[in-house]
């Protein structure tokens, strides 16, 4: 990878030896992360692949997955960015506790997260019962339920990334805007947000990837029904019950699509600050 400076010009490559102490663990780390993928590729039923790809239900589950993960990411950005700003820029009592609470979905086993969501948004849940009796709205077993489950599990990834970006951003720009008479809202929309845009993009990508692979909270909270709540990870799990080859094919489709999208976005959107 050539080194690119701010003006976009390629700097002359500086030949420096990479320290072995970094190269060896880096290589092992890469192997560890990619070996399972190799396993899938080796074991894939290549001969029957064309028929399997066109099997009914595969495309439905894939489209539903992409749609739900994208919607969940939008929800996470809408609520997560303001929350990250609050955590990074406003001193308030109990801020450390709030920050710890934000990470709860990360440590919570997703299935438990799904049960917790049912206890709140379910038909007999704390809020769900009221929503059902007053407005006739129920979330379990609906596509909205899938989006809720995915957003719950994925939002911490966005918040942590954006908060990190905000803390790393030079707050002098914001102070300058304030001295020039900009209110906090104007400062946020015109100075802060453009400043941390790469961080938001990185967080959104992480968030989207996590939402796309979400299984436990989704199957527990939203259930599993083809066309409405059966996303790819759920389809993979059920295929695994009877047909390992089908499960591998479904996994490969999900991986190919997500890696293609992420690789396509990465260079365009995410420039490391």
């Amino acid at each position, binding site marked *: 990878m050539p080194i690119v400076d701010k003006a976009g010009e390629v700097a002359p490559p500086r030949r420096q030896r990479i320290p072995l102490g970094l190269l060896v663990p880096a290589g092992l780390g890469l192997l560890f992360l990619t070996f399972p993928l190799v396993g899938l590729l080796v074991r894939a039923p290549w001969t029957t692949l064309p028929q399997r790809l066109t099997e009914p239900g595969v495309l439905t589950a894939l489209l539903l997955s992409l749609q739900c993960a994208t919607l969940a990411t939008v929800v996470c950005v809408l609520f997560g960015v303001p929350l990250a700003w609050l955590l990074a820029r406003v001193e308030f009592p109990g801020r*450390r*506790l709030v*920050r*710890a*609470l934000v*990470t*709860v979905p990360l*440590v*919570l*086993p997703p299935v*438990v997260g799904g*049960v917790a969501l*049912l*206890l709140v948004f*379910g*038909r*007999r849940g704390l809020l769900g019962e009221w929503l059902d009796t007053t407005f006739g709205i129920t979330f*379990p*077993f609906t596509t909205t339920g899938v989006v809720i489950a995915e957003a719950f599990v994925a939002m911490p990834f966005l918040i942590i990334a954006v908060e990190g970006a905000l803390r790393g951003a030079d707050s002098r720009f914001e102070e300058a805007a304030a001295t020039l008479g900009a209110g906090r809202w104007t400062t946020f929309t015109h100075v802060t947000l453009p400043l941390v845009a790469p961080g938001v993009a990185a967080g959104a990508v992480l968030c989207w990837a996590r939402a796309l692979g979400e299984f436990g909270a989704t*199957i*527990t909270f939203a*259930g*599993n*029904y*083809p066309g409405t*709540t*059966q996303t790819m990870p759920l389809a993979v*799990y*059920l*295929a*695994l*019950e*009877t047909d*390992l080859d089908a499960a591998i094919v479904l996994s490969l489709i999900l991986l190919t699509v997500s890696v293609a999208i992420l690789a396509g976005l990465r260079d365009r959107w995410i420039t490391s600050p």
Partner: protein
Amino acid sequence: MTSRWIRITLAALTVAGLSACGDDTKTASPQPSVGSASSAATVTGDVTVFAAASLTESFKTIGKDFEAANPGAKVTFNFAGSSALATQINQGAPADVFASAAPANLKTVTDAGGAEGTGTTFVKNQLVIAVPKGNLKGIKTLADLTKPGVKVALCAEQVPCGAAAKKALDTAGVKITPVTLEQDVKAALAKVKLGEVDAALVYRTDAKAAATDVDGIEFPESAGAINDYPIIVLKKAKNPAGAQAFVAYVLSDKGKAVLTSAGFQAP
């Protein structure tokens, strides 16, 4: 910095504690019959038993009894959907005994060379309609599940309880549109317990184990979809003697008594 991590750890521990509490229903077990096994010689060592999710309560009791009768032995269980278990065994998971909720899943293992024969059928199980305690929707028959506004959970067809449900519905000529196809019988039952669905087709034994939250309604069509549960010692068993002894214990009168009190039928 340190206090921040302590807080995070505390939060994590609290959450872990909460999740551990949420599982109390699974430990409800029918009256444990303590006593020594009828088999003369005792066995020792670890016995790893892969058993269908629906056997959770009764096998836990049988495991304790078996350990009491064989002081040197320790039984470890892996409870999951039978098809998931079959996949795990075929992928080399270390198991001594496989107790499946349907012969088809056992066949998956024998076909792959993991065991020989068809195993021994030790119990039969039948489906019932599980409804939340009190049965507010007044469900009495299979046909009631087709009424508008009745939310039904079924097991996915890939798992035995789903296959049995499909068979029962087909023989009854009843067509249901479920709101969800659950990954195993316990997941379907959980949706009933939480009141998210109005009914689910589960095994009689599962409805019985959850009797505090769930009513089980028998329906005649379930006779057409009775599940045989086969048990078998696996070829790669690390403790063949222990595995044989455990299977013998399950088939003994003591084992049968535990299974019958859980709602299973004799084969």
